């Protein structure tokens, strides 16, 4: 299983700004190794986020998202103490979910 995500959720008025740093190779499938063989693509395809268990965001990503992806989004109506959880699934079917509390 992949390394944990770092999630920071900060309340700003009636919104919460969530910053997520994921740990993933995000291999594009364009690069070649030293033997000249193409390194197969390996990247996060789908990211979902939920607030207190109800989904608020889904995203689909391509190979163009950088290695160890960063994502920032803003949830309406979130307040301190709410739980934000973020999950991703990559093209090999690996997945990871992490949770943070809005501060």
């Amino acid at each position: 299983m992949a390394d944990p995500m770092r999630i920071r959720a900060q309340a700003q008025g009636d919104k919460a700004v969530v910053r997520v740093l994921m740990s993933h190779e995000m291999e594009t499938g364009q690069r070649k190794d030293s033997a000249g063989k193409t390194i197969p693509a390996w990247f996060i395809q789908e990211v979902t986020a939920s607030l207190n268990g109800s989904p608020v965001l889904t995203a689909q990503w391509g190979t163009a998202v950088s290695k160890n992806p960063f994502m920032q989004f803003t949830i309406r109506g979130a307040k301190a103490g709410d739980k934000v959880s973020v999950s991703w699934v990559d093209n090999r079917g690996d997945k990871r979910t992490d949770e943070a509390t809005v501060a």
Partner: protein
Amino acid sequence: MRRRMMLKRGAEVAAALAAAGLWPAGAHAAWAQQAFDAKGFAEALKALGARTPQESKDVTLTGPDIAENGAVVPVACACALPGVKRLVLLVDKNPNTLAAVFDVSDAIEPQFATRVKMAQTSNVYAVALMDDGQALFAQKEIKVTLGGCGG
């Protein structure tokens, strides 16, 4: 230990929601293979079902003018109008133009920031797909001194 419990519970909740069919349709829809394979701005948008994109001042795209390292180019997109269904990021001259699609729900502000790879100097687009079928976009040329793909 407590943290582990939380993680486990989170996954269980997600599974339960999925089983109950409460998860939004988008979450388990197939990844848009065709759109992500498309080459070029027009083709990628067509694959996403967007008609005749129009440039709009209400969509904003922020990023550096010159990116020293094409492997990590910070970009942010936002739309000031209500009724945004999706926000899409595209890099025109990448091998695969489409970079990311964000499905906007009522609980989310239509503004996102992320980091993308760029193979070479290119136009970057932020497209807002609206509820009424309109596609509004903003573009910005980002110069890349060191490419982020291949090599």
